[in-house]
């Protein structure tokens, strides 16, 4: 059924449709409407599961982790300071191979204090062993949560679905909310290891030696490699059931392009509009959207971009002292390829500032004109 809803509401719908058994959460703007909507449904017996109203995000992840290890389907949502506070437990959850699903609504990290969209909060969790999916719109947010449960429970790693503050969390769009029967067909009842069975008592997460530690890390890496295929396969299956597919990456007009623009999340939608206009004027500009950040889709990106000589990356995040994080990741993914690339990083929308089609056109023209790329990022602002 089509509903006109916010991205937060869409995420809550997915959590309900996935028959999530335990939700442990703590309020933080701009995630809170997810927590409130699920509470409302719990109060009116529409949720099915249990809610734990925690005293912090750190404890919320601890409860999701231990409940997941007991064998139930768990979810939490957070943003910004909340995910920063959770950081320790994020490592813990992936180390325990617990398939917890979380929505992270991207918000600026303090200081300075602010409430706007910025991807640095989730990207700063890059090395925690969580899979990360970046959503372009409300529909993709809903669909990605459903996919995330299936992926996490297959791979046995936790999965983060990332949506931007306001642009997705609070903006309303028509969203197809699938029938319960369709979701049940795609996502079977939870069947994950129960680690605390009385008949088979063991000690989960004891202290290990150096070489045992290395073995566990290697297995985690193997799981991430396996996840690349699992995400593709399940996306294909999702497409057959729901008629929508997203992939690890998405590309348009890359073949023979003079410049390929690489984007993530909501900036992609704006870029689609800007590039359509520019193509009408005869410019040959391709577009690649990176949807899955962990595991990083090196293979698919190389297949698309090994032959691209000129690449521009636009992003709403910054690793201070380096550049936009997707730009660094893309450069490292392409370095062993046969082609030579000029890869120029652009920071646009930092602090949640607006990125309109005109700004993207300016970036494209700048990138086409440049003789040599700069090693650091180019800052783009709204005013020409």
């Amino acid at each position, binding site marked *: 059924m089509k509903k006109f809803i916010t991205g937060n509401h869409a995420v809550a719908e997915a959590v309900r449709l996935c028959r999530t058994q335990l939700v442990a959460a703590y309020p933080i703007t701009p995630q809170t409407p997810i927590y409130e909507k699920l509470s409302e449904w719990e109060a009116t017996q529409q949720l099915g599961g*249990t809610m734990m109203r925690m005293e912090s995000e750190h404890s919320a992840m601890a409860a999701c982790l231990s409940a997941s290890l007991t064998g139930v389907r*768990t979810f939490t949502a957070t943003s910004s300071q909340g995910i920063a506070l959770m950081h320790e437990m994020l490592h813990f959850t992936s180390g325990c191979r617990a398939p917890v699903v979380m929505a992270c609504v991207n918000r600026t990290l303090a200081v300075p204090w602010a409430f706007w969209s910025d991807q640095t909060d989730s990207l700063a969790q890059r090395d925690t062993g969580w899979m990360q999916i970046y959503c372009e719109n409300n529909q993709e947010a809903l669909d990605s949560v459903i996919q995330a449960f299936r992926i996490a429970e297959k791979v046995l790693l936790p999965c983060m679905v990332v949506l931007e503050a306001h642009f997705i969390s609070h903006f309303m769009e028509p969203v197809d909310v699938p029938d319960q029967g369709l979701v049940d067909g795609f996502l079977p009842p939870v069947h994950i290891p129960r680690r605390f069975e009385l008949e088979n008592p063991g*000690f989960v997460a004891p202290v290990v030696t150096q070489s045992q530690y290395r073995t566990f890390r290697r297995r985690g890496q193997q799981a991430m490699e396996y996840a690349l295929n699992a995400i593709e396969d399940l996306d294909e299956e999702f497409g057959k059931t729901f008629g929508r597919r997203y992939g690890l990456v998405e590309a348009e007009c890359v073949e023979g392009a003079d410049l390929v623009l690489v984007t993530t999340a909501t900036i992609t939608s704006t870029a689609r509009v800007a590039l359509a206009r520019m193509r009408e004027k005869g410019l040959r500009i391709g577009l690649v959207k990176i949807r899955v950040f962990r595991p990083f889709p090196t293979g698919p990106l190389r297949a698309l971009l090994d032959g691209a000589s000129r690449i521009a990356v636009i992003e709403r995040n910054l690793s201070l002292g380096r550049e936009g994080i997707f730009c660094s990741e893309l450069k490292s993914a392409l370095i062993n390829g046969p082609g030579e690339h000029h890869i120029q990083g652009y920071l646009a929308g930092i602090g949640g500032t607006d990125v309109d089609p005109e700004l993207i056109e300016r970036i494209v023209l700048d990138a086409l004109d440049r003789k040599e790329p700069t090693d650091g990022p180019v800052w783009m602002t709204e005013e020409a």
Partner: protein
Amino acid sequence: MMPEVESTRPKEILRPGHTACPGCGVALGMRMVLRALGNRAVVVVVPSCVSVISGPFPHAAADVPMFHSAFEVAAPTAAGISRALALQGQEDIPVLAFAGDGGTFDIGLQSLSGAADRNEDIIYVCMDNEGYMNTGIQVSSATPRFTWTGTTPAGNTRRKKQIMEIMAAHRIPYAATASIAFPEDLTGKIQKARDMRGTRFFHMLSPCITGWRIGEDTAVKVSKLAVEAKVFSLYEIEDGLKYTLNHQPRDLPVDRYLEVQGRYHHLKPDNIAVIQAEVDRNWEELAKRATRNPRD
């Protein structure tokens, strides 16, 4: 036929070969708590001596499903398991968390408070050895005044935090102190708690051989002196308000407890007088609130 004494002895959950220091008060306490609880339970441990005693991979010192969670989340970790078991129709399986005094009085206090506020269906046992002993004897907010530790070489300047009053203020169904020197009292309280629902809290004074500078064969004796000198009283608090004293102490002077511990050897007579006055004041306050109902 098995001898009668063997058939009536309760099953040990903590196995021989665990990795505690010789004579450890925490290991004795774990053994008694787990024996009273039985192995139809799930147990959470967090970084502390307890997590070390529980064994390195792939060994397990206890014959019960156990999870080693993060330092500051013993309570919400146990709560997550308890909620999940209930969702699976197994709400009759008790979930017990062991944490040290650092994990309870200090870094885990917020998450413990949250769990107690929600009245999560868990048994929480604080093994209080009055300092960060697992990291090699540093001060915590459970360390008594004037005590030597590695980070208070001239003696601790702070008083010991009153954790039982903090827990009582949450109005949880059950909070109790227990001691390895009073095993019947301890066993009875654990079994009473096991058959209740909601948040149940235990404060166990647990002598540390190395940190307290005491002999390997003295953990029980020192625990007994703590109780008889009123440094650590045995009592229960129901619903945060109903105090019951379980043992009438012999009222030994506090020095009898202090003098056997190397961590107090630097004390001067006026320090001891201050400690005695504080012990007396705490006892008076407790006696005012409590009715007497000895378990032993």
